[in-house]
């Protein structure tokens, strides 16, 4: 298993930072070892200093990522880096997206499945360098309500059409995720950590599609 740089990309407010923070929580609570049987894991460096907190009237603090968030973690003896740039179309943020798309060996494309997909595809249309294979996180699945599985299949089909037909990029795995801790969605919480572990384990190429 070699050192891997993983870029977590996606349109604004799809939950990239939340996935990253949940992964940090899993590492810190030793959940990678207990749930997935990994070697000892530890966070080497977690940098969320590029995060800006927006003024809000209620208790929920909305944030925007200006400089990419970075998490360096170790599993066994190998270190890996996760990058999560913001999703805005602002020059300073766009610099992060472009850089991360260039240096990451693996890209996780995050979608908010409760929102219109077309506007989220526009984000990727502006990213010139994307590896030939990516994996996809279908996030905020808890907001889909009834017929979740059926809706997920339709969403997968549309995402496949966009990446495979328009961008010639293969999707090697879909992960249905919920990055916020919510009762009843523990499996989807686990998928946030699982997709990152599968990135460093399989290095995606040739990986089976997973849910």
């Amino acid at each position, binding site marked *: 298993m070699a050192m891997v740089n993983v870029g977590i990309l996606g349109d604004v407010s799809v939950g990239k930072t939340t996935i990253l923070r949940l992964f940090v929580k899993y590492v810190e609570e030793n959940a990678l070892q207990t749930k997935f049987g990994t070697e000892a894991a530890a966070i080497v460096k977690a940098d969320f*200093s590029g995060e800006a907190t927006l*003024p809000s009237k209620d208790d929920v603090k909305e944030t925007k990522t200006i400089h990419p968030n970075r998490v360096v973690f170790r599993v066994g003896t190998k270190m890996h880096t996760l990058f999560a740039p913001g999703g805005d179309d602002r020059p*300073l943020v766009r*610099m992060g997206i472009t*850089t991360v798309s260039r*240096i990451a060996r693996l890209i996780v494309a995050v979608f908010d499945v409760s929102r219109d997909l077309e506007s989220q595809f526009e984000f990727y249309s502006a990213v010139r360098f994307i590896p030939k294979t990516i994996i996809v996180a279908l996030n905020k699945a808890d907001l889909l309500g009834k017929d979740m599985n059926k809706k997920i299949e339709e969403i997968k089909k549309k995402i496949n059409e966009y990446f495979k037909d328009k961008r010639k990029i293969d999707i090697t795995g879909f992960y249905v995720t919920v990055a916020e801790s919510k009762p009843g969605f523990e499996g989807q919480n686990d998928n946030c950590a699982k997709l990152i572990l599968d990135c460093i384990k399989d290095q995606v190429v040739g990986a089976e599609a997973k849910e």
Partner: protein
Amino acid sequence: MKILPKKADWLIFPSVHSDIHSQEVEDALIKKAQELFGEQQEGENFKFFLLTGSFLGAFGYTYSTVRYWPGTIRPESKKSGRRPVLDAVFSCISIYLSGLVTYQTDYDQAYAEIKEVLEKSGRPDLAEIVEEKLPFVSMPPKQMLKEGQTPVTPYYIIRNDEDLLLAELYPSVQLTEVVDSIRSRYTVFFSYQGYTAFGFFDNLPENARFGFGTPAKNFDKTPDEKGVMEFISKDVETLKDLFVALITAHQNSMLMQYKIEDYESLLNKILEYKMEEIK
């Protein structure tokens, strides 16, 4: 001929965000900084401007400073007709530069990964070629720039280690062409436990005690005025340590804080600049 709009259109001036201030801490930081930088000539101090801050809202930035730059206006000054240009420029480009420096670090990290693969594949010669290209990675990425712009990192690295970088801003790139007041400035960038700090100088303090090669001392005292003063007098031996004291003082509201409402206007201007000239 260069036709630029008035600076007021795109250079956003700071205002006072919090006036809680310990003059004692500021004086101690300035005195220690002068001690670390040494003198340019007998009796003449280097001009310096050190700052650290954090994001506020979507486009805002709050920061505290430690400075010795005679003749410049502070944001809280009541003098009419003069504006804090140095604050406006240095605070905005700090955010821009911190992005560039960290991206450069990311490229270096990616290079380490490539080097490992190439060496394992028996091609160390290719690793050398890639290494030679590293300092010339375009920042901002070339695809963001319009035709005719110089896609080069706007600084020359004089020296760096894991958490401190000393560089000179090139006078030839669009950053310095747009803001002529920062022509050929020396700068340092420091990163500590997720926080960042910057320094700007009028001349290169060659003999300064930067602390390259030695880690910054951790702040292990009570984060109050007494603790910071004790840290400055007993523990600060390098610029890295001084930045730790500045970051602690800022994070615990011991120094006056200033606010820039929109730090991106300057970057947007830099990215647009050559296009206007082409038109």
